[in-house]
């Protein structure tokens, strides 16, 4: 089966409009790119689109109530929602160091979720009791 996919290259501000001609599961032709970076992007987007996911998790006793985190590598695009949701009810406790692994092997991707900042502990009034 032949089909055509429209794609905008995001690798530089040129934003080339590309057309991918697909036969079955193979790409037969790519048009519209200005350079090789666009070709690689188009192939990747077509075969295995991936995204970096950054979000936050709740943080107890920290300077701020939210700790920013990200996936250590790009995850399959289709799993963004699932992974974000799985982090909604997670809470960690300060102090946290930047780069610390917050969740291992998130949703079976074998990719870790890591902290993107250090969160110092702030002494709470309750601690004094």
């Amino acid at each position, binding site marked *: 089966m032949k089909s055509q996919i429209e794609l*905008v290259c995001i690798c530089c501000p040129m934003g080339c409009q590309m057309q991918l001609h697909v036969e079955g599961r193979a790409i037969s032709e790519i048009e519209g790119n200005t350079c090789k970076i666009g070709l690689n992007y188009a192939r990747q987007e077509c075969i295995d689109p991936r*995204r*970096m996911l950054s*979000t936050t998790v709740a943080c107890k006793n920290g300077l701020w109530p*939210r700790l920013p985190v990200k996936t250590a590598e790009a995850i399959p695009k289709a799993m963004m929602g699932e992974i*974000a949701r799985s982090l909604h009810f997670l809470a960690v406790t300060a102090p946290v160091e930047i780069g610390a692994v917050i969740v291992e092997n998130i949703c079976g991707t074998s990719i870790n979720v890591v902290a993107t*900042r250090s969160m110092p502990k702030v002494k709470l009034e309750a601690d004094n009791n």
Partner: protein
Amino acid sequence: MTVLQAHYDVVIVGGGPAGLAAAVGARDSGCGRILIVDREKEMGGILNQCIHSGFGLHNFKEELTGPEYADRFIRRVRSEPGIDILSESFILDISPDLRVTLMGSSIGLVEIRAGAVVLAMGARERARGAIRTPGYRPAGVMTAGLAQRMVNMEGLLPGKRIAILGSGDIGLIMARRLTLEGCEVTGVYEIMPYCNGLTRNVVQCLKDFDIPLHLSTTMAFIHGRDRVQKVTLAPVADDCQPQLAKAWDVDCDTILMSIGLIPENELSRQLRLQMDPITGGPRVSSTLETSLPGVFACGNVLHIHDLVDYVTEESMRAGAFAGELAQGRRRPQDNIELQAGDNVRYCVPHTLSPDREISVYLRCIRPQRDCILRLGNFLEKPLRLVIPSEMIHLTIKPEILQRFYGTTLRIDIVPREDA
């Protein structure tokens, strides 16, 4: 706790990426007493709330999130002896002889003397007042940056059904962020016929989540007495006036505005610095010194940057020049005025000197393909594409300016003849 000294070589107002880099620059120039002051709880400025990745591609050759980028500089600044960091303190005033008045919870009201001052106060977002939207004034209308801070730092959601006005990058990034947090984003509405944000953000923040982008569309009316209930949207004609006959309503409880940034220049105006009405920041020489000798400016307070890497580059230089001056080393005065010409909205710095290599940042007025960036008759740089949202960087070698005997040089962006 920081114990303040009575005299510093360089005092830096603001601890965002600009202030942090200025401290590093001042230190590298040989200064031993540097003070960074920020009104927030911690250093890092706006980066602390920008948790998405896309920072530092130029400087670190990897894609960092905002907090990660800030962390690298905060560590660097902390590890240097001779840099004092003061948070939760506000610079109230700077006198022409560089006495700095500051106030803070841990220090009270104090005055210190400075050899040089670097302004790095960053920018503020344009709010609803900057554009005229008819309708009520209910709760639930806020800037996209405020929502970003609420969601990413304070753990508060601004609402459940969100309409975003303006297609700036912060708005696009918040569309994705709020969707991932379980909110429904009804769409992004932009008055211009083109998107103001990066293509990358249109693809990864809107298309990936099927959020519609309505171009040539504006908000005609905001409904709701206590809380936003719905918004009337209308396509605009060529004169940017809403065509009410084609208007439609969208239910929402929150409206985010992403309509641009303005340099935070209360202090600069108080100092009566000469300002550039186009950039909204002070006029500066090639050493990034303002019209008040000893006062330098860099980062978003000078002109709005889209890439933090450029903020860092510019601010390191500002810090180094401030540091040199504090140590009694003065550069020769600039003798060439730099002027914005065809399709150039502004260029910074405003004057040049032939004694060293100079970095110039500029922005175009309208998108243009296959063009040439031309500096007088001395320098030509071919460019495939210029767009207003992407700053252009030009390095001018001293040899070029040494061949020039006039007083004014113009920068133009002109079509390429053979294109």
